[in-house]
């Protein structure tokens, strides 16, 4: 086995190499550590070689003992939103610079228990607020925006931009992400990888630095649906003693529905009652706002899915546009409260000079938070304040309910919903950084599933303008991740898009 090509292997392939003892977990860890440490995309924020190699050695022991756990010895890196004992956790914010958590997030713990080896921590938008990974503040000496491995003049998407860039650049075969309004799906699309956000409540939020509690969900990002299924199986599971919003749904093997190639039309029997899979195409997702190159790649992908036996049916999600104002009320409202704990009293940054308590709070938070975070705290405080609560927050909650109802109506007519992840391919660094509204509008296709708490995923379906990846979004009904992953898997068995590597990656 040549060391040079290890990073092109999928998790499933790497695991087979470990099982056949062609390579050790320690060698794998070394290889990816080396690549990650040579990262030029500013995807990584922290390493801890000793901890990584200790995990690898422990994994190798389990391998030697014949342990056949599917993720044992495989490398992963974590978005810096997950708290970790072995690495600092900053959430991309100066206010948490040098913070060290005394415990691991449940997701981190579960993946470690599955035998995965943590390579390092990954950059993200500050407190996961952003869709370009430009809202970053750490390291404070030289905060560098993460670049897209397909074109370093472009953004990787966000807020899990570090995760997407690291996987696309083959620095790690898999990463964790978090998705509040599209933060797994959009960067996965922009970087040409596969990522899934499960049903709200599937993955424990314990140990995720909270942005918007009613929306935040963890999920895996990797290069194929098959790899994502393995990761998701380990990552999800009830956590009733630590997260009250964790669903009481047993751990599930999401790989179980992934069928081996069977005939030309695997999707002809993948729908309800063994009928053809019905794919809903919401007309609101394919309107004027959708760029022509994205539209073309999606049309081709839908045609491909039809060839695999699926039926494409038109559906409606009439309140799609409203998801933007609804999300940008609810998410900041929750964030304004969630971020109150960063006050300079107990942990994290505290201003050096201050005259009294109010001054300490003000200076600490002014210095510690970046401008997008401040903007959202202000929006959130405003919509919750006396006299505005009913008009904004309460109204937004009502429409949120209607958006969720719209999906249920749509699922009466289809098994899964397909559409774009974002209206365009990745834009240039700095293009929208001074225009928050333009950034918010680009979230339109990912927000509805977030607001409804539905599982959603992104998979690469070709290249658009300037040779940049286009992602397709699949949205399923509650707890149908296994089905979503199978649709994506069948597509990937018959198409090469997910195998494409960014130009500069050797």
């Amino acid at each position, binding site marked *: 086995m040549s060391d040079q090509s290890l990073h092109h292997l999928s998790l499933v392939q790497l695991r087979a190499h470990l099982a056949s003892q062609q390579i050790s977990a320690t060698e794998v860890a070394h290889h990816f550590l080396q690549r990650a440490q040579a990262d030029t995309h500013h995807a990584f924020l922290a390493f801890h070689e000793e901890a990584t190699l200790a995990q690898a050695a422990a994994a190798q022991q389990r391998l030697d003992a014949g342990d056949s756990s599917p993720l044992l010895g495989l490398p992963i890196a974590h978005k810096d939103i997950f708290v970790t004992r072995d690495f600092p956790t900053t959430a991309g914010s100066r206010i948490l610079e040098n913070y060290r958590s005394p415990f691991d*997030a449940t997701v981190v713990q579960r993946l470690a228990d599955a035998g995965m080896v943590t390579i390092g921590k990954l950059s993200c938008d500050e407190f996961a607020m952003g869709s370009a990974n430009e809202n970053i503040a750490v390291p404070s000496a030289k905060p560098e925006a993460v670049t897209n491995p397909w074109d370093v003049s472009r953004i990787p998407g966000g807020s899990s931009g570090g995760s997407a860039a690291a996987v696309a650049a083959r620095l790690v075969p898999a990463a964790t992400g978090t998705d509040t309004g599209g933060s797994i799906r959009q960067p996965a699309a922009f970087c040409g990888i596969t990522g899934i956000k499960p049903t709200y409540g599937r993955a424990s939020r314990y140990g995720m630095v*909270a942005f918007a509690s009613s929306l935040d969900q963890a999920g895996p990002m990797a290069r194929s649906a098959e790899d994502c299924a393995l990761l998701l199986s380990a990552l999800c599971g009830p956590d009733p*003693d630590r997260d*009250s919003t964790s669903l009481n749904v047993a751990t599930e093997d999401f790989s179980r529905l992934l069928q081996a190639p069977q005939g030309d039309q695997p999707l002809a029997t993948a729908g309800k009652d063994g009928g053809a899979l019905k794919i809903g195409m919401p007309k609101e997702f394919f309107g004027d706002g959708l760029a022509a190159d994205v539209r073309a790649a999606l049309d081709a992908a839908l045609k491909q899915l039809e060839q695999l036996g699926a039926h494409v049916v038109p559906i409606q999600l009439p309140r799609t546009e409203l998801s933007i104002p609804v999300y940008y009320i609810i998410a900041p409202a929750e964030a304004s409260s969630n971020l109150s704990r960063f006050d300079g009293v107990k*942990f994290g940054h505290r201003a050096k000079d201050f005259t009294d308590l109010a001054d300490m709070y003000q200076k600490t938070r002014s210095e510690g938070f970046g401008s997008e975070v401040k903007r959202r705290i202000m929006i959130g405080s405003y919509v919750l*304040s006396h006299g505005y*609560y009913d008009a904004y927050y309460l109204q937004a909650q009502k429409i949120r309910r209607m958006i969720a109802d719209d999906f249920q109506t749509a699922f009466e007519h289809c098994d899964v919903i397909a559409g774009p992840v974002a209206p365009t391919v990745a834009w240039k660094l700095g293009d929208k950084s001074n225009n928050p509204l333009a950034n918010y509008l680009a979230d339109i296709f990912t927000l509805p599933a977030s607001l409804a708490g539905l599982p959603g995923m992104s998979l690469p379906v070709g290249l658009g303008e300037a040779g940049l990846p286009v992602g397709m979004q699949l949205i399923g009904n509650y707890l149908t991740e296994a089905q979503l992953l199978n649709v994506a898997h069948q597509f990937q068995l018959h198409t090469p898009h997910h195998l494409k590597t960014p130009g500069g990656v050797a």
Partner: protein
Amino acid sequence: MSALLVHGYEVVIGFETHAQLSTKSKIFSRAATAFGAEPNTQACAVDLALPGTLPVMNKGAVERAIQLGLALGSHIAEHSIFARKNYFYPDLPKGYQISQFEIPVVQGGEVSFYVEEGQETVRKTVRLVRAHLEEDAGKSLHEDFMGQSGIDLNRAGTPLLEIVTEPDMRSSAEAVAYAKELHKIVTWIGICDGNMQEGSFRCDANVSVRKPGAPLGTRREIKNLNSFKFMQQAIDYEVRWQIEQLEDGHAIQQATVLFDPDTGETRAMRTKEDAADYRYFPDPDLPPLLISREWVARVQSEMAELPRVMAERFVCDDGLPEYDATQLTQSKAMASYFEATAKACGQPKLASNWIMGEVSRRMNSGEVTFDNIPVSPALLAGLITRIADNTISNSAARQVFEALWSEATASAEAQALATIDALIDAKGLKQINDTGELEKIIDEVLAANQKNVEEFKAGNAKALNGLVGPIMKASKGKANPAQVNALLLKKLG
């Protein structure tokens, strides 16, 4: 409407009481709630609001809320909501307090009690608005830190029930009677230890005054009244102050005030203008609290008989007046003393009279409680039987009772000594103070240990120890060591 007026003004009081619930662990974390630990030793990651931590509801706290609702005849909401009350303060780690705002777990209900009004004893009923679950904050310690403040988060996350009344009280006496009654109920059902010194039962009084028939006046809230005595003083002062202000032509400003026991005055902490906008909203970390009828039924089946129910039973089964029944159910110990006495003599009304009269009077004058009362229910019942069969008059019985109490106290002491002596004898533990017996043992030991005797006489003082040991042993440990020493020295001259 009560005719209690103070200088022509009617006093209007409403209460908010924070009862600390008697759970072992905190309301949303597993840290312990015990009082008095070293600062910050009972605060876990959740209590410190470390990034990534989330609240998980303590079922025991919910069950205590259900118990209170059952005790007060409230509606227990099948569906209630936790909200966040947002404000910044160093002892509030998350920057918000988790509380219930729009939909509390306990809704409505009432508290009834008796107060003296002039010559009469009047039954009053105070309506409850609600009782809701919430977490306590930590403590700020402003002394001893060289100009800085210390924060102790041991109390952060301690479960509280905030019990809110309608403005139904019309005097400080009613207010205190209400607070005492509520205190009795929460301690009776065991949801709160009722320790006011340690802050387990804290009352805030909303006080306003108005001319009879006028709309409600502007209220001022007296915070943290932690004794019944201060409660009365504070309200009386506040009422006088408000009336003076109004008489002088000043309007009352809505404010929060503190009572200073040293000066006996209240002073404003903050006015309405400083009132924060708490930006309440449902806590997205906690799903709605669902309480099934079955859960309520199970909690109810596990509860002890409530004072209210017990009092009703005393009225219906024993024919007691309501007032008596209420007084006798002031504590579980008193109620069971009554029940035992009444049962033994078959004269519940006489038993009630005696317990509320002579027994209570004797108890108030000493350190005696129903747990160590010298006159047993059986004795009291015997006395009552002799009144009932006209053997003695009531006043004669009082003399007998006095004697019983004193003699019982004396005889209890004598009884105790007798018991102890019997044990000492039975176990043969009495020290030998009889010199003759002891001298005999010493002589034997000296004869058997001539070597030590000679060494001692030669000037080796330590040789004495070699003699004391065998003597003590020979006496089976019953010799008095001081006496042994004295006798030895005398013999060794």
